[in-house]
């Protein structure tokens, strides 16, 4: 199982040693193994070893009908589940030429942005715990619990929603969804300010994260980094703005960027994203049109032969689903392009030369979810 690290034991100088932040570690956010070559506390080399929870989902999907694949997408990134389902569903709708009614598009936006807020709140909690602040998780999870209750009423699942269907939704939103949403939004932005002041603006944290893990924008683009990890280095690339899918073109929101390039900028970008998501949610809830929530989709879906790729802005970056159809009811090939896969590959470039403690902070700021790396 273990892959040969690029640095072998025999070539270590006598001051260096290898430390394994093994697959079981409180801070690697899943089953990730990072092999570190250290000299004292200084990191000389980093080697991420992935694949511990590879489940062959792409091969599995070749044996499933098109609608039955949607729950697999939830499990890939359980924090931004609706966004991932959306990518797949968009790709299939492109293949079939299905036009989704507008109400369904707005509901998709609402659920996706709620997922984004949920994901960032959990990232905030986990990051706090990684750096030793054990209290913010309880505050952030209070907000998260409200959102989960809303989404559970709408979709039936707290974490893995299985909300989207090819063509729209199965059921409309429950009656008390929108009042609940506005109740949540009425106090949310103040809470975000509070959480930012508690952890992100804390003097110990700023001392620990400023100037650490500096990621050059050209390097980031070359490595395929997307999402807040990229926007913390400068390029304002957000698929909701640059390549708007669905009805994102109708909303007025900023794309949070930071020129700081270091870990702290990435943290700040995520906190700002929560605020922008709140803005989008307000606008979407206000502009929600009446109508049907699903297009007419045949019972057994057999798209015409061809291929389609759809990309969405998940909380971690660009998630894409590439679907190849051969005319039957099962896809010929499905490929999921996950943001954490490319975000992790840049770890080696930015983590060399810092302390062990900084590795934790950097990995936390990249916001990795391992199942979508391993698929």
């Amino acid at each position, binding site marked *: 199982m273990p892959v040969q690290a690029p640095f072998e034991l025999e070539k270590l100088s006598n001051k260096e040693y290898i430390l394994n932040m093994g697959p079981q570690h409180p801070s690697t956010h899943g089953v990730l193994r990072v092999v570190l070559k250290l000299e004292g506390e200084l990191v000389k080399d980093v080697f991420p070893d992935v694949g511990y929870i590879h489940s062959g989902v792409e091969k599995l999907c070749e044996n499933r009908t098109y609608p039955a694949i949607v729950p697999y997408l939830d499990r890939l990134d359980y924090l931004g589940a609706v966004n991932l389902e959306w990518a797949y569903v968009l790709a299939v709708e492109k293949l079939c030429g299905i036009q989704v009614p507008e109400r369904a598009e707005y509901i998709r936006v609402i659920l996706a942005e709620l997922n984004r807020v949920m994901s960032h709140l959990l990232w905030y909690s986990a990051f706090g715990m990684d750096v030793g602040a054990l209290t913010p998780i309880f505050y952030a999870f209070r907000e998260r619990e409200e959102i989960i209750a809303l989404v559970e009423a709408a979709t039936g699942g707290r974490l893995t929603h299985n909300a989207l269907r090819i063509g729209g939704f199965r059921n409309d939103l429950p009656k008390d969804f929108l009042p609940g949403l506005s109740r949540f939004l009425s106090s949310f932005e103040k809470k975000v300010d509070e959480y930012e002041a508690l952890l992100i603006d804390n003097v110990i944290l700023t001392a620990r994260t400023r100037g650490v893990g500096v990621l050059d924008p050209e390097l980031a*683009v070359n490595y395929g980094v997307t999402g807040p990890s990229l926007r913390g280095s400068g390029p304002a690339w957000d698929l909701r703005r640059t390549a708007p899918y669905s009805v994102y073109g109708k909303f007025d929101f900023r794309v949070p960027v930071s020129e700081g390039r270091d870990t702290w900028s990435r943290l700040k970008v995520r906190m700002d994203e929560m605020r922008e998501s709140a803005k989008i949610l307000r606008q979407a809830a206000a502009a929600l049109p009446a109508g049907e929530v699903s297009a007419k989709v045949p019972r057994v879906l057999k798209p015409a032969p061809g291929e389609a790729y759809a990309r969405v802005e998940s909380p971690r970056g660009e998630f894409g689903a590439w679907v190849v159809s051969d005319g039957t009811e099962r896809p010929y090939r499905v490929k999921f392009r996950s943001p954490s896969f490319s975000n992790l590959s840049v770890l080696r470039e930015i983590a060399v030369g810092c302390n062990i403690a900084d590795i934790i902070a950097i990995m936390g700021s990249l916001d990795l979810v391992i199942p979508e790396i391993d698929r």
Partner: protein
Amino acid sequence: MNTSEILGDMNRVPGASGSVGPDSVLDVLAPAKEVPGILAALKKSGFGHLSFVTAKDLPSENLIELVYRLFSYVSRTDASVRTRLDRANPSAPSVSGIFRTAEWHERETAEMFGVEFSGHPCPGKLLLPDGVEAPLRKDFKHEEMTPLPAV
């Protein structure tokens, strides 16, 4: 450079043929050894983001088709570069010198389809354990894995 100029450049590459699909995706089919040059040219004309590198197994035509998907944040369009490799001995030059993204994507494609990428800086398995070879090929068999009934 606009799409027609890029298309013209692509069509000038020996063995390559480009076209623009209905959803304005620039599709280029080229022989394997021309792919790095094509990708470099596309990168220069604005397609700075490589979304993924993967493959498709076509046992009926005895081919493995590699797919490189690019995106231009400038013109907001996609480009798809495809190349066809012989299924018995698939080998292609690595493009990780042009896009560092390709390092990990090519490793994954290599282990999933059995493709060899020449010039790759650190080849080796990425996701799979030992003992599993080319699982995404259509004729993959493993004594411990039995296909379940289709859902």
